[in-house]
């Protein structure tokens, strides 16, 4: 297990591993989402209270769940990056942030759209919406911090610190806004009782679960692809990257940015 983990952590083998895995994740994710959309929009019955408006949960709930999961994943990667100084984990942190921000924004927008028919306003200072908004700012902070540094390694490690402090902060924000104000409907899905004895009709629940699974797989695919790009950019001077990126007989097959230090590298052709 450990040797496998170590081998995977080396950029070239990760690159090849991701190259093989990502298409499967993407295809299965999109298929599941497609199936969920069909079931959710055309098969599931309308809600007796909310009518057809409830159908937005098939986008909203997975996006909201992912926004938190991605932040958690990002901070776990951050901890790995800081403790073991693993380059791949650094790449994982900065590649997760924009995806997380996108899902958070999606959750916010769909939440607002859902809020209009059910609460009568696009925006209410509800606990979950507010903490989602704070989460968006946390993501934007990570993205902005990354861009503020010119050194990719430093940037990633700074982001890792921010992600770690942020992940302590997320539950605090969540409970503080909950204490402050809440009109959000309680979670129908996540509790032991709810899983044993579902409150949702199976025909409504099934597409939701499918959509959740599909979105997680989709995220996995996008994350892997972004990490691949990040690894390529980081390792752009390494031999294996040039073998992948540049066909050998291309006339301008030389390192992208040849600083003085590269003259000493043994990996030059």
């Amino acid at each position, binding site marked *: 297990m450990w040797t496998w983990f170590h081998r995977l952590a080396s950029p070239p083998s990760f690159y090849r591993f991701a190259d093989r895995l990502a298409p499967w994740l993407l295809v299965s994710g999109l298929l599941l989402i497609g199936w969920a959309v069909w079931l959710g929009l055309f098969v599931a019955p309308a809600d007796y209270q909310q009518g057809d408006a409830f159908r937005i949960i098939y986008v909203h709930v997975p996006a909201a769940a992912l926004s938190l999961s991605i932040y958690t994943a990002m901070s776990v990667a951050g901890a790995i990056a800081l403790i073991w100084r693993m380059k791949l984990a650094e790449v994982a942190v900065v590649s997760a942030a924009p995806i997380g921000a996108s899902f958070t924004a999606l959750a916010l927008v769909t939440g607002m759209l859902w809020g209009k028919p059910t609460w009568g306003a696009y925006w209410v200072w509800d606990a979950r919406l507010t903490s989602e908004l704070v989460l968006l700012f946390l993501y934007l902070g990570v993205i902005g911090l990354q861009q503020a540094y*010119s*050194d990719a*390694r*430093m940037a990633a490690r700074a982001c890792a610190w921010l992600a770690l402090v942020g992940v302590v902060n997320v539950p605090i924000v969540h409970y503080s806004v909950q204490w402050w104000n809440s009109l959000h409907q309680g979670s129908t899905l996540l509790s032991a009782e709810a899983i044993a004895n579902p409150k949702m009709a199976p025909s409504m629940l099934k597409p939701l679960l499918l959509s959740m699974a599909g979105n997680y797989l989709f995220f996995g695919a996008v994350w892997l692809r972004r990490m691949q790009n990040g690894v390529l950019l*980081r390792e*752009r001077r390494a031999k294996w990257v040039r073998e992948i990126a540049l066909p050998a007989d291309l006339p301008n097959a030389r390192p992208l940015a040849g*600083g*003085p*230090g590269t003259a000493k590298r043994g990996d030059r052709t």
Partner: protein
Amino acid sequence: MSRLEVHQLVVSRGDRVVLDGLSFSVAAGEVLHILGRNGAGKTSLLEVLCGLRRADSGRIAPQPETRERHWVGHKNALNPSLSALENLQFWAALNGERLDDPRAALAAVGLLKPQQNRPSGQLSTGQKRRAALARLVAVPRRWWFLDEPLAGLDVQGLALFAELLGRHLAGGGAVLVTSHQPLPGELPSLRHLDLSAAA
């Protein structure tokens, strides 16, 4: 600890490898003059040896203890609002060192009383450099890591530096110094390490 061995040191700045497998050693009583063009990794090397920067790989044995090494970077570590005396006293307190006569240390580097008490922001470049070098006099430590210590020093300053260096070496100390100009004074134990040449 009379010998510092550096073995296969690899240091990068950002994604650029500045030192790629550097090995050398320095013994007590020696001066190692580190040479190299801009960007060759002179400062990075000293920073790694002082614990300011992390090496990617390689071995430094034994890594000098905090209380055994002096670091005078190319920045003087003087707060401009505080006087040279106050800066020196702060540095000593920060390191848990007791200063018996801080004024004498400043006088030894040629800073007289009015210059000791003036906010160091008002001192000239050379005087600031001297104030930074006063730390070497105030607290004796075996290993000196000096990054461009001669920058801004006048002729008397250079002579003074040569004298400091000579006394330190005679006492069994060792010096690793980067400088673009030749070191002043007679240094029988002077060795050179050219980073531009190192492969």
